């Protein structure tokens, strides 16, 4: 199909301020998106990408969510906003039908009350009173475009990360919008999921859709884009074809992760004179560990042999970690990487074998005590943060280890290490997603554990965040801590690690 050159969406945002906000979230942003094109909006953490994406996709509405001064033009219809009560009102459902937005958290897109992928896809059509026969055809067509044809009868709750992301895209494109805006569509996906989502986007562009991806990294998708727009502190600082932007100072200053930027940031993490790599006894050992999740109760009799097979996540797994060693573990989504980390500190107990920390079995030690030796950073920082200020957050649980005075000193040092010294008295909920992740990292670092286990630590981090992370990992390794990184982020992980392991049928093998 020949790509068209008609303008699908044109936006001129002079200023957008959230209700209750003291400063504009977006200023002087202009963009023009053509049908059948891929555009990448690149920006670091807090640059305003998601705000812009939601404005373009009708999730944030002028007057309803904030004050907009500027104009939006969709399919030839232009709406002008001056921040007054007389501004035009956008009907989100009608807007979404023509310019759809898919959030980074794909699950948030779903209704949660539909029992199959096909029904979830049809949800938006049901709400438009589409006749059933027409819905059946639309579901088949959308499933073919998004590669979901073989999954139509599956419960959405059982989908992998890549499948879920494709379902969210399917829910957006089933009404055949002219514009599709995707927020970080490749975040936390394994290589297979990345390839699947990339294929879907390529198909949509080839089919004439205008696709906009929001990203804080120049990833494989961004490299395929016809146009880049760089956002920095809410302002578009550069726009044009990738060749023109790649070497620009604006892109460099934006905090966007560039191909190879992680490499340069991490060059100094390779074992240096301070590292005592490979010496001393193992600080963490897994000996013949097996683990299986209990089979869910079923209405139609006991689980089949195949289902039992699927719940056996780990089989006779051996692993050891030396002081100062950095190990990276990769594997497809759902392979058991996060499960493995939870075995390190006893959050999950092995069904066979033994886990030893510092040479001692932790089989009968409460998690809260193992936590003094094993620090675990989870995928979702929101679950980890619960105090009133960042400083209190980091101080939590430190007093028994270091005393009242020592706890504050270490907490402040940890905040400084991740670049959040100035945010010590800020409520964690007020921090950006990237800062929340760094704060969660600080809570782990402050304990100075012998083992540092980090689950997908780079997700949501821009280049500055990754540099902070790599520095902290290096420091921890230099003081003798063993570090386990579970990450599919090849750019970061490959360079940081001394050893790369891959999940293979419930065991780990060297890469």
């Amino acid at each position: 199909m020949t790509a068209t050159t008609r303008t699908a969406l044109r936006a001129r945002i002079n200023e957008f301020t959230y209700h209750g906000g003291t400063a504009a979230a977006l200023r002087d942003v202009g963009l023009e998106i053509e049908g059948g094109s891929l555009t990448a909006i690149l920006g670091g953490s807090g640059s305003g990408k998601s705000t812009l994406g939601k404005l373009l996709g009708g999730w944030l509405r002028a007057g309803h969510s904030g004050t907009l001064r500027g104009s939006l033009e969709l399919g030839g219809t232009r709406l002008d906003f001056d921040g007054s009560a007389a501004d035009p009102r956008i009907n989100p459902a009608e807007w979404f039908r023509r310019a759809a937005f898919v959030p980074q958290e794909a699950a948030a897109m779903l209704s949660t009350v539909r029992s199959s992928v096909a029904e979830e896809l049809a949800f938006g059509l049901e709400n438009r009173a589409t006749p059933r026969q027409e819905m059946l055809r639309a579901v088949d067509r959308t499933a073919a475009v998004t590669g979901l044809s073989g999954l139509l009868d599956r419960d959405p709750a059982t989908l992998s990360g890549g499948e879920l992301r494709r379902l969210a895209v399917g829910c957006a494109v089933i009404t055949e919008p002219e514009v599709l805006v995707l927020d970080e569509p490749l975040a936390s996906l394994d290589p297979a999921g990345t390839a699947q989502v990339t294929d879907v986007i390529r198909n949509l562009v080839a089919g004439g859709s205008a696709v906009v991806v929001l990203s804080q990294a120049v990833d494989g998708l961004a490299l395929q884009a016809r146009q880049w727009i760089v956002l920095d502190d809410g302002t578009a600082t550069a726009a044009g074809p990738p060749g023109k932007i790649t070497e620009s100072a604006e892109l460099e200053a934006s905090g966007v992760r560039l191909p190879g930027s992680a490499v340069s940031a991490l060059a100094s993490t390779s074992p240096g004179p301070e590292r005592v790599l490979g010496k001393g006894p193992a600080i963490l050992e897994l000996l013949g560990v097996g683990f299986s999740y209990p089979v869910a109760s079923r209405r139609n009799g006991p689980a089949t042999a195949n289902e039992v097979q699927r719940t056996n996540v780990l089989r006779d797994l051996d692993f050891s970690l030396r002081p100062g060693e950095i190990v990276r573990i990769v594997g497809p989504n759902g392979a058991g990487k996060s499960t493995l980390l939870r075995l390190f500190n006893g959050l999950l107990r092995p069904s066979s074998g033994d886990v030893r920390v510092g040479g001692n079995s932790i089989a009968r030690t409460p998690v809260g005590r193992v936590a003094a030796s094993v620090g675990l950073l989870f995928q979702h920082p929101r679950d980890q943060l619960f105090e009133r200020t960042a400083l209190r957050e980091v101080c939590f649980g430190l007093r028994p280890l270091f005393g009242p005075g020592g706890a504050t000193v270490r907490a402040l040092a940890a905040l400084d290490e991740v670049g959040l010294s100035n945010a010590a008295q800020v409520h964690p909920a007020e921090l950006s997603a990237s800062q929340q992740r760094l704060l969660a990292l600080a809570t782990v670092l402050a304990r100075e554990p012998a083992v540092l286990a980090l689950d997908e630590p780079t997700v949501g981090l821009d280049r500055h965040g990754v540099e902070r992370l790599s520095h902290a990992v290096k420091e921890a390794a230099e003081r003798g801590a063993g570090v386990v990184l579970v990450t599919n982020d090849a750019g970061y992980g490959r360079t940081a690690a001394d050893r790369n392991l891959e999940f293979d049928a419930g065991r780990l093998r060297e890469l």
Partner: protein
Amino acid sequence: MRLHPFTALTAAACTAVATTAAASWQLSFAVSIISSVLAVRAGVAGRVLSAAAVTVGPLCLSLVVLHGLFFPEGRTVLAEWGPARVTAEGLQFALDLASRTSACVLVLLLFSFTVSVPDLVSALAASRIPPQFGFVLASTLTLLPAIVGSLDRIRQAQEARGLLLRGSLLAHLGALRLQMVPLVQGLIEDAGIRGQALEARGFGAPGPHTSYRHVDDPPGQQIFRALALVLAAAAVALRLLASWPTASL
């Protein structure tokens, strides 16, 4: 044969009404036994019986204590301790009431544990009941597992930071407070994002909605529902007629 959700609902509701109207402990026991057998066959016996035990157990106990020991109309005294008298009439009344309540609870629990929620939501939508009603119904059933899962993740994250879930009740309550903050924040945030997604997908749009899921409603089941409703109404009418002279005295 697959039951239309309205057929199952009608059968359960009419059985509960007829059992109450009949006021016969023999019928109540029969309904309880049939419900239990059906629960076993559907593979939900454990959940139905444990839920029934939690719901009905304390109630039955209080009925036996209240009416078994203190039944003013009781004449046949079986035992006596001061003001408390165990009478045959009191025990009979407690048995009637307990068996009737148990039968109703069991039959309704059987329905709620066996009905296909997607089928029910779809049938409601097809009956032109506002889809928001079906959504709230389905959300109610999916919210609790979601909260449990979320609380578990939060507890894990906090234990990994040194929270020791041991010791006094006070310590556990303190830990619960720490878990509530991220739970509530998360729920509010999720609700906000999901609300935007639902709105964008046209959920709040006025006017008719259609349903992708097709639920068969054979004519035989429609006739059964009509008959069941007539029979339940007849049982209530008969009960009223039978009780009328007594009530007027």
